[in-house]
């Protein structure tokens, strides 16, 4: 191995050599610089290889032929190798990216860049505090120089502000160092740690000064105004270094100092880190400048890693895995984003829409955002999981909660940005991207995925990037050039194939979900044949969602479950985002989903109590430390799952998300995706069952929530003018019913929930397709603008008619089965009041469904739709399949249900159904679906036949052959009663559907925004104020520590 000293020597030698070259030899100077950086990468990569794969021991590098503490020494270990590699790579790529600017400024700028990278390596390598100071000063000066690379005038002022604060910082650092030296007689970090500095006179204070100075390099809140200005105004390639490499090096410096400070200072680090993380994220919310936003995000991420470092007392050996996971995600993503920002002409977030015309760059952006948000399969995801596991095990729950809160806020602005990118108007200007710039960006993309693989490999769990469904989904990224129908065929084949491969593994309950997820998914995909072109982005997203679901039902370990959960969330998010006006709705979807996911994460972490692997099945038999927490765990998981099923209170994302989605996407996200939440609730209740919290039976609370969800979902549905929103609200209500069944905690309740799972899938997919087809043809979703379409689109009408009967639970269709089981189930219910609410909800379903069928298909046909054609074949075909399925399921529900009924005996041996003969019997009543179907069918057919016979010569009247108030209408608009259809109902019950929940969440987000907006006034742009902030920060930490 080449000594790590060459990292420093090579950079310096090259920098000095540059001075010998003539100013004109720009190419040569550039080449020397790149060569030096490449050499440095080679050195650190070599070490990383040796440590990581060959298990080499860390190496101490002595200088001057003397041992520490008498001479400065460096250390090269795994962490150092990794960090220097990160730094050098960032340096090289930024140098590539900066080619033009560097050439303009010449060799001196190249030298400054080289020295900056060298100094960063130095910070990482050195084990001497004063040496650390020297390297820090080098960074300060080099930063002062590199800021000037920017074309932005303001960079100058920013650089000066930075220098001001750095001066103050360096004073503290020096004073701290000298007193630390005085107390311990050494400048060596390990020596100081060994001499327990804190115990010496003045030692603690000296440490405080050193510590606070080095922490200041992490730009802690609120002492970070200067850094933000730099982020905003510097050249993006430099900001990439400043964010990724400088941040990483400074963090490692703090980590080294914490060795000296010992356990006493860990909470301080955590506190500073956490406050920074949360505050910076909130401050980022109102930002509109992309680079400043990234700056806030960088600060936040660094704060998070600092907080993690402060938790090393409980994280122990896992600290590097977690800290590096977070750091690497942050560094790669942030560098990548900064590089990307150089390609975007405008500085407003919405200007990034320019990237939309470049799918590859868009993919890069998405990768980075997902990395930052800690989504699988990136390292941040594994790190977050482990972090939560440890924090929960040690009961540091407030910490965990704050971290998750901060992460959610961060996801908020990141995904809002992503939404802008994909949905906003793209500026006319073409995005210019030189090969150099592209190299840098895509190197980051590759690094991101590679790190994801490595972290998966190290996790000791399933490497997500080796899981077949996910790989299958990702493969569609490579197949994007194929036409949509080919991809569609592949996708369907893949899903059916996976089902065939795995179906034997499932128990009856899972089998039902598997059929809905995979086979059901394949059927909805049939509708996608209607799309033309390549449909870029659709298949990776959709398949990601399905992959998540496929993984979800197979998961036994809590980690696998959670990973699958996140994957399906991300996939569905992108899917929803494809809708024309879905930007805000997709955002609220992902935020609620992530919020829910975080609750699930916390719940699992609490349950595992630090165990590295936690089987979901063992939620039922929690160990001792977790046992008293069981109700809390239950609560967290339940709320988490309920965000997916859109229970009341966390439902506001659903209507927009489902309504604005594309025609073939709505059935997927409504008919299929919602079932993932139910699946989770099934698992939860199966394992944990009843829990009491403060004397409240939690399943009873669920009953109430479910009943209210059913009622309010239905009520809101009847007041919608938008057909797809109506269906979406109806889904909320239906999910309420299913949840109600589950919460009943008896055999039939669960069976009913399952019945709803199946029914809701079939009829909601069917209705969404039908209405989607209509909306596609008419170009509107406002029901009052339609009318009389039965004549134009009879095939689309049939599913709606059948669907109406099924949804409202009228015999003989399958909805009735659900109601019948429901009544039998509530016979043994413990709580009767919520039943009243559910009863009330029942007939309301009828109202909105009638509205759906009447205002769209019946009534008066509008002039502009006289030439509307039937929906495309591929959209009608799956609807017909659903009609058949619905009829079959209505006649022989036992096909699916009797197996599940038997399976449920495991949990509730009592109260099963009897399946002998054609009638289904319970202990209270009986039901003969076949007989009902025959009786109703015969009566119906007889009457119809007679009527047809009698009126066989009847002619169809013309549209306006009606009279009212002694006038004949001639405009369809005036005679189509459709708008505000249930006006009297609104008068009577409207008070129940005031948007209280929406207002609550809006107020909450407004509050956050306002808080961020007010707090950022702190950064008034004056360099002196920033120095004030730093001093105030020092004093505050000092006082909070109780005077050290």
């Amino acid at each position, binding site marked *: 191995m080449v000594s790590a000293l060459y990292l420093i020597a090579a950079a310096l*030698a090259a920098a000095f050599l540059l*001075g010998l070259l003539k100013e004109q030899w720009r190419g040569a100077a550039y080449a020397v610089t790149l060569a030096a950086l490449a050499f440095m990468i080679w050195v650190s990569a070599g070490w990383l290889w040796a440590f990581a794969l060959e298990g080499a021991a860390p190496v101490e590098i*002595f*200088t001057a032929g003397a041992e520490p503490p008498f*001479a400065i020494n460096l250390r090269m270990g795994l962490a150092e190798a990794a960090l220097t590699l990160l730094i050098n790579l960032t340096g090289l790529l930024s140098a590539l990216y900066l080619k033009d600017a560097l050439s303009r400024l010449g060799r001196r700028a190249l030298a400054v860049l080289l020295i900056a990278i060298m100094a960063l390596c130095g910070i990482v390598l050195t084990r001497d505090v004063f040496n650390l100071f020297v390297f820090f000063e080098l960074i300060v*000066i080099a930063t002062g*120089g590199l800021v000037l690379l920017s074309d932005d005038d303001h960079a100058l002022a920013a650089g000066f502000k930075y220098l001001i604060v750095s001066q103050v910082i360096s004073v503290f650092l020096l004073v701290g160092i000298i007193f630390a030296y005085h107390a311990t007689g*050494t400048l060596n970090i390990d020596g100081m740690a060994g001499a327990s500095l804190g115990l010496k006179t003045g030692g603690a204070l000296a440490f405080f000064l050193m510590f606070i100075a080095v922490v200041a390099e992490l730009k802690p809140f609120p002492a970070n105004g200067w850094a933000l200005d730099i982020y905003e105004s510097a050249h993006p390639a430099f900001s990439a270094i400043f964010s990724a490499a400088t941040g990483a090096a400074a963090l490692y410096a703090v980590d080294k100092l914490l060795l000296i400070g010992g356990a006493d200072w860990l909470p301080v680090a955590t506190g500073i880190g956490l406050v920074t993380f949360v505050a910076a994220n909130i401050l980022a919310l109102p930002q509109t400048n992309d680079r400043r936003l990234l700056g806030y995000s960088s600060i936040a991420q660094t704060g998070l890693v600092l907080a993690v470092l402060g938790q090393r007392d409980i994280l122990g050996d896992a600290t590097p895995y977690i800290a590096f996971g977070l750091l690497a995600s942050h560094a790669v993503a942030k560098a990548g984003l900064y590089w990307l920002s150089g390609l975007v002409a405008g500085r407003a977030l919405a200007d990034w829409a320019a990237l939309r015309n470049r799918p590859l760059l868009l993919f890069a952006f998405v990768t980075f955002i997902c990395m930052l948000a800690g989504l699988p399969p990136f390292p941040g995801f594994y790190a977050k999981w482990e972090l939560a596991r440890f924090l929960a095990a040690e009961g540091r729950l407030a910490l965990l909660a704050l971290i998750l809160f901060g992460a959610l806020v961060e996801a908020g602005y990141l995904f809002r940005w992503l939404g802008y990118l994909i949905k906003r108007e793209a500026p006319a200007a073409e995005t210019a991207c030189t090969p150099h710039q592209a190299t840098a960006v895509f190197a980051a993309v590759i690094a991101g995925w590679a790190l994801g693989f490595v972290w998966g490999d190290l996790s000791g769990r399933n490497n997500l990037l080796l899981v077949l469904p996910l790989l299958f989904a990702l493969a569609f990224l490579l197949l994007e050039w194929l036409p949509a129908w080919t991809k569609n065929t592949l996708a369907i084949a893949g899903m059916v194939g996976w089902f065939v491969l795995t179906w034997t593994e499932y128990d009856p309950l899972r089998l039902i979900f598997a059929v809905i997820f995979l086979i059901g998914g394949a059927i909805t995909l049939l509708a996608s044949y209607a799309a033309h072109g390549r449909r870029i982005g659709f298949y990776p997203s959709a398949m990601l969602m399905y992959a998540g679901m496929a993984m979800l039902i197979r998961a036994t370990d809590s980690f696998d479950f959670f990973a699958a959960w996140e994957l399906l969330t991300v996939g569905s998010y992108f899917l929803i985002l494809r809708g024309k006006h879905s930007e805000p709705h997709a955002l609220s979807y992902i935020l609620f989903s992530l919020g829910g996911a975080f609750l699930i994460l916390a719940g699992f972490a609490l349950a595992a109590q630090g165990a590295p692997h936690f089987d979901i099945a063992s939620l039922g038999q929690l160990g001792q430390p977790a046992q008293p927490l069981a109700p809390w765990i239950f609560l967290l998981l339940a709320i988490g799952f309920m965000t997916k099923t859109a229970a009341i209170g966390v439902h506001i994302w659903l209507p927009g998300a489902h309504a604005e989605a594309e025609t073939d996407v709505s059935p997927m996200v409504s008919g299929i995706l919602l079932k993932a939440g139910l699946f989770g609730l099934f698992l939860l209740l199966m394992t944990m069952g009843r829990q009491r919290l403060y004397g409240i039976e939690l399943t009873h609370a669920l009953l109430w929530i479910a009943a209210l969800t059913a009622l309010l979902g239905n009520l809101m549905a009847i007041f919608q003018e938008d057909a797809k929103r109506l269906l979406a609200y109806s889904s909320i209500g239906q999910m309420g019913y299913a949840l109600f069944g589950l919460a009943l905690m008896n055999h039939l309740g669960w069976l009913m929930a399952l019945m709803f799972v199946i029914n809701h899938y079939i009829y909601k997919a069917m209705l969404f397709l039908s209405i989607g087809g209509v909306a596609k043809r008419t170009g509107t979703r406002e029901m009052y603008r339609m009318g009389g379409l039965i004549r134009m689109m009879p095939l689309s009408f049939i599913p709606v008619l059948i669907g109406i009967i099924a949804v409202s639970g009228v015999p003989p269709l399958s909805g009735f089965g659900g109601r019948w089981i429901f009544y039998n189930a509530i016979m043994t219910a413990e709580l009767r009041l919520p039943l009243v609410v559910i009863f009330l909800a029942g007939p309301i379903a009828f109202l909105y469904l009638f509205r759906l069928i009447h205002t769209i298909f019946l009534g008066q046909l509008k002039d502009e739709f006289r030439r509307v054609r039937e929906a495309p074949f591929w959209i009608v075909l799956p609807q017909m399949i659903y009609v058949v399925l619905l009829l079959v399921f209505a006649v022989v529900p036992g096909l699916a249900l009797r197996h599940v009924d038997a399976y449920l005996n495991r949990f509730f041996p009592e109260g099963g159904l009897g399946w002998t003969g054609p009638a289904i019997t319970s202990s209270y009543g009986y039901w003969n679906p076949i007989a009902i179907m025959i009786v109703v069918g015969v009566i119906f057919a007889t009457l119809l036949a007679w009527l047809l016979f009698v009126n066989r010569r009847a002619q169809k009247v013309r549209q306006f052959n009606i009279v009212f108030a002694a006038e004949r209408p001639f405009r369809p608009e005036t005679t189509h009663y459709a708008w505000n259809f249930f006006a009297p109902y609104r008068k009577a019950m409207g008070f129940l559907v005031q948007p209280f929940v929406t207002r609550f969440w809006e107020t909450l987000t407004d509050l956050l925004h306002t808080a961020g907006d007010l707090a950022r006034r702190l950064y008034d742009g004056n360099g002196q104020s920033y120095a004030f902030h730093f001093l105030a920060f020092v004093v505050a930490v000092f006082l909070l520590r109780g005077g050290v």
Partner: protein
Amino acid sequence: MIKRFIAFLLLIAIGGIFATLLIGYTPDAELNLTARYYAERTAADLGSANIVTAIVVTYRGLDTLGEVTVLFLSAAIVGLVLAGGRQRTPRPRAPVGELLTTGTRLLAPLIMLLGVYVFVNGHLTPGGGFQGGAIVASGVLLLLLADPLRHFSHGLISAIESLAGVFYVAIGLLGLLLAGGFLDNRILPIGTLGDLFSAGAIPLIYSLIGLKVGAEFASMLASLSGTEEL
């Protein structure tokens, strides 16, 4: 006014921290571990009479390398910053006094020589590369003052600076290859304590530092003086 008041309050708090340090401070009666090592071993191991020099050049040589780099950086950046400014043809200025010109011609070489003396003897007497370098630079300064329009050979300064730097690093690496580690001075014979040619590579390194520091200061001064009055 409020700003001053807050500044005052903050500084009182900081002053409190400092006061605590001051009160807690008791001078060492004995040399501590590190200092004792230097006192006992420097002469024997490195052969340098000036222990501070020995520390600066070898034991903490990496710091010094960094320090030189700081100057290098500063000079480069000052050059960068100012090079970006407007380039106007210099206005003719009032001629500098005869006395200054003559005096400069006489003094400048002497000053530079003094500088060289200081850094060459760095391992024996107080002073060394930095001080010597600064003195050399003040010679340059004098020349600048005497003849503001004199075109300084940036090329020469920069070549000296670069060569000195490269050699510095090279010697350091030689230490790594031939002796105990990076910047180990024992690649050359240690010699007798007190001789000019003793202490191994220390005089050599310190001279390079002196040259480099001198060149860097000179280039900084030249850059600043080269800027146009606005």
